């Protein structure tokens, strides 16, 4: 089972998405621009790219070193070929610890493997402790951004949820009161949970150290109070040494929101010792999940990603549709690249097949205007636009739909000439309009009839305009 591909939302667009997203992307964009004046941004990007390229190129040996050093420090390391194995490891560790309650930090990797469902199935309650994730979990929603999981929700929705939970009234404009409620509601969970589960931002192979950055302090609590700490990490997050770590722990917040440092950065080398009050056991679950297969292919650079989220807010498509529009765990430009890669065999040749939903995964690279804003935003210089183009090409190579190719060729011939274009466009519009309108709601077509049904499986379509642009143009110029 893979949690990578998720059904697209069938309900209409959330009215909160657009204003929230736009505000967020503007704020974060301004912060990033400011921060870039403080450092030699291009030199910093190049250095970050080198560190990540070195890590991915030497991945097997660095993973081996990380494991050896972490075990020497008293930690435990578990290897998982796929999400199912990773979930099984985590469930087994929780059971062995006798834990029925786990506090969980934000981790997209845990979303990728469907950890929440696996723990629930095993009878282990896993409470999301990041404020945004807590809200998203309580509302039965899914995170819509790598770093800002609740960016698609409004304060009013949060206030309503907390009121329902507590029986108290909340003013949506009193954000501080909402945050205070979440703090109080979760404090008891931190104190009683047997296990803390977190992701990992990077791991230093040389010393077996896990680095985790955060804003809220929930990671620090999850790695201070429960008796057992389980860290889940995609294998590509390992880096060689501390010199690289010093650069990347600054690059990550700088690329994400323009701050010079995250509010907290934890460096964990094995369990508590020397009378320290941390966890007695530290487990690292290393997930391959299709990553190894991407090494050595033209898509290898996609593994350099440090999950800062910069390409999401930079992307005009993401800003319009939001994270949920992609229907996948990872959204935005990087999501459109790695989703088909992780779901397939890494080469992109059979993109999406492993999920049993080939269409979904392999169609994601089309969610881009190829404007290149993502490439400029990327702190490790992943050529996302090139990769999107390559994935598009591969999705259609050996395409059995010969009929589709012939149709497009005929269409291209007809619509390349003004005379044939006018004749056919007007006819098509007149013919389709009544049928389309009968099935559309608020001008949006959600379930088009065959042969157009495939188109609306993953997206809504606008009804055709009764008056094509070229007709309106002629009329307005008065020479119609």
């Amino acid at each position, binding site marked *: 089972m893979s949690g990578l591909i998720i059904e697209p939302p069938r309900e209409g667009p959330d009215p909160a998405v657009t204003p929230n997203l736009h505000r967020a992307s503007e704020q974060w964009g301004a912060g990033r621009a400011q921060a870039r004046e403080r450092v030699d941004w291009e030199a910093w990007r190049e250095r970050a790219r080198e560190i990540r390229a070195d890590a991915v190129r030497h991945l097997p040996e660095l993973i081996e070193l990380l494991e050896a050093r972490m075990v020497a420090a008293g930690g435990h390391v578990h290897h998982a070929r796929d999400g199912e194995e990773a979930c099984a490891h985590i469930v087994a560790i929780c059971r062995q610890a006798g834990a029925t309650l786990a506090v969980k930090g934000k981790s997209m990797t845990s979303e990728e493997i469907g950890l929440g469902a696996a723990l629930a199935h095993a009878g282990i309650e896993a409470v999301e402790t990041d*404020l945004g994730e807590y809200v998203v979990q309580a509302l039965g929603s899914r995170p819509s951004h790598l770093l800002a999981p609740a960016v698609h929700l409004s304060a009013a929705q949060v206030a309503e949820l907390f009121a329902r939970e507590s029986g108290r009234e909340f003013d949506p404009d009193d954000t501080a009161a909402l945050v205070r409620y979440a703090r109080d509601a979760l404090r008891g969970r931190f104190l009683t949970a047997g296990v803390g589960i977190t992701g990992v931002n990077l791991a230093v192979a040389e010393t077996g150290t896990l680095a985790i950055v955060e804003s809220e302090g929930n990671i620090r609590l999850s790695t201070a109070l429960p008796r057992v700490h389980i860290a889940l990490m995609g294998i590509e997050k390992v880096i060689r040494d*501390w010199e690289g770590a010093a650069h990347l722990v600054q690059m990550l917040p700088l690329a994400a929101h323009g701050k010079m440092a995250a509010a907290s950065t934890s*460096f964990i080398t094995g369990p508590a*010792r020397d009378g320290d009050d941390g966890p007695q056991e530290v487990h690292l679950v290393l997930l391959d999940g299709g990553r190894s297969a991407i090494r050595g292919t033209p898509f290898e650079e996609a593994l350099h990603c440090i999950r800062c989220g910069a390409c999401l807010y930079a992307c005009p498509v993401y800003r319009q549709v939001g994270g949920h529009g992609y229907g996948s765990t990872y959204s935005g430009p990087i999501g459109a690249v790695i989703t088909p890669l992780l779901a397939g065999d890494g080469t992109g040749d059979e993109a999406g097949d492993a999920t049993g939903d080939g269409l979904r995964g392999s169609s994601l690279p089309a969610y881009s205007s190829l404007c290149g804003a993502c490439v400029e935003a990327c702190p490790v210089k992943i050529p996302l636009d090139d990769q999107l183009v390559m994935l598009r090409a591969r999705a259609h190579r050996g395409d059995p739909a010969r009929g589709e190719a012939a149709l497009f060729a005929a269409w291209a011939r007809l619509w390349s000439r003004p005379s044939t274009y006018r004749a056919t466009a007007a006819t098509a519009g007149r013919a389709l309009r009544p049928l389309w309108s009968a099935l559309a709601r608020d001008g949006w077509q959600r379930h088009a009839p065959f042969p157009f049904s495939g188109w609306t499986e993953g997206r809504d379509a606008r009804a055709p305009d009764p008056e094509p642009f070229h007709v309106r143009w002629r009329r307005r110029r008065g020479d119609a």
Partner: protein
Amino acid sequence: MPEYPLDEFRARLEELDGSLHEAPSLTAARATAADLIGAATVARWRDDILDGIVTREQQAPAVEAEISLIVADVGVAATGAVGFVHRAGRPRSAGLLPPTQVVLLDAADLVADVASAFEHVGLRNGAGPLPGNVVFAAGPSRTSDIEQRSIRGVHAPRDLAVVIFSR
């Protein structure tokens, strides 16, 4: 190395909504900390530097205390962060659970950048085991999860005061 690391440290820390208090001596730093704390209940680390700041009656377990009184192992001018090496007598929970944090920092432990800070607290390649847990805190904990409104203090401290002193 910037010419005035203390000015840079102050600027970065204040940007992040932390406050910096300068003291000419350890004795003065203790007095400043005592002023900041007042009559509040305190969870403190075991360290000579912190002696004589709060009364025995003021001391409380970390889960109940209003203020944590701790010592930074390093300060980072470039980021405004303070670093803590957790070990015996310096538990993670004491610096984490109380909503307000008062941190003493020896000016000799202020370094220019992140790489120097790692070196300073023993996070480096090579021989010997590393400290089990090192945390760098840059300003109070914060969230922008609700409509991007920035709010201080979520699960970790809401207020952070650093008292820097020379010996």
